[in-house]
């Protein structure tokens, strides 16, 4: 298999799993809004996503971008801070021969914690979008429940 087709396959796989994840998130939101079961909620979420594919794609892209940037920033900041703490603080300087193990472990912990918390923001963004789309669908094009600021951002 050539490098190019392998890349295409990986892209298709990424999109497929992202869609499945998005459908799952949407199903949970629809369950929360309507109180219906899994199958009908997934059906409603699928309809909403296919009807508003561009808006969903843009929001999801922005969400992924900020999640990745956030995880990288938090991990880098914690790693750099722990590296310089070990180098500059006398207590650690006397007891530790190399700062790399401490930097690696603190970076790993920061990565896990940042991933967990920023995935919450990702899910929340998906949920707000689903709520907005449901609100708009129920109001036949008119958004009734969104705050003014959210309405401005989403309708732009």
């Amino acid at each position, binding site marked *: 298999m050539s490098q190019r087709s392998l890349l295409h396959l990986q892209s298709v796989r990424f999109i497929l799993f992202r869609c499945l994840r998005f459908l799952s*998130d949407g199903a949970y939101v629809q369950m929360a809004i309507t109180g219906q079961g899994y199958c009908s909620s997934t059906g409603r979420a699928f309809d909403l996503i296919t009807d508003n594919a561009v808006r969903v794609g843009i929001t999801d892209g922005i969400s992924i971008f900020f999640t990745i940037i956030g995880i990288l920033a938090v991990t880098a900041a914690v790693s750099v801070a722990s590296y310089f703490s070990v180098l500059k603080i006398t207590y650690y300087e006397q007891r530790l021969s190399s700062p790399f193990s401490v930097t690696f472990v603190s970076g790993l912990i920061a990565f896990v914690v940042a991933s967990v918390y920023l995935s919450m923001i990702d899910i929340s963004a*998906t949920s707000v979008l689903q709520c907005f789309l449901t609100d708009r669908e129920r109001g036949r094009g008119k958004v009734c*429940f969104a705050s003014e600021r959210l309405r401005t951002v989403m309708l732009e």
Partner: protein
Amino acid sequence: MVFLPITQVFFIIATITALIFGAGYLYSEGAITFPGNAAFPSISLNGGQIAMIVVFFAACLWMIFFFHGCNHYLLCSAVAIWYFNGTNGYETAPCGESLHRLVRFNLGSVAITSLINGVFFIIKIIANILSFDNTDNDNGLVECCLKCLNALFCIFKV
């Protein structure tokens, strides 16, 4: 809401610990023999014990996905409550309300969703392990089926 991921991680770690210890316990239930005075014992399990281990693994995997699903539902539900009630000035407690909704109305749906997610996870693992290679003796139809299976599982590979 801040404690939600911490609780989830705590429950998942507890389930994984139970899984490891339980699987070890079930495995040690088999007949232990030392063939030829070997240093390491050989453990043979009968069909029932193997079935028990498989069921135990499946149940623990489902539990892990179920906790993850509950966390997911609580978050989505809290956001939905905030959106439909909070922005209009109604006094609500989104976390408590979503926990009530989860237990009262949607626990079964979350269980089904987590089961489906768990099945997908197992398919992903199987797809990473298995590969259907055809041999020279296979006829055209078998070769075609194996290639289709490979293509199907290739989608699910991590």
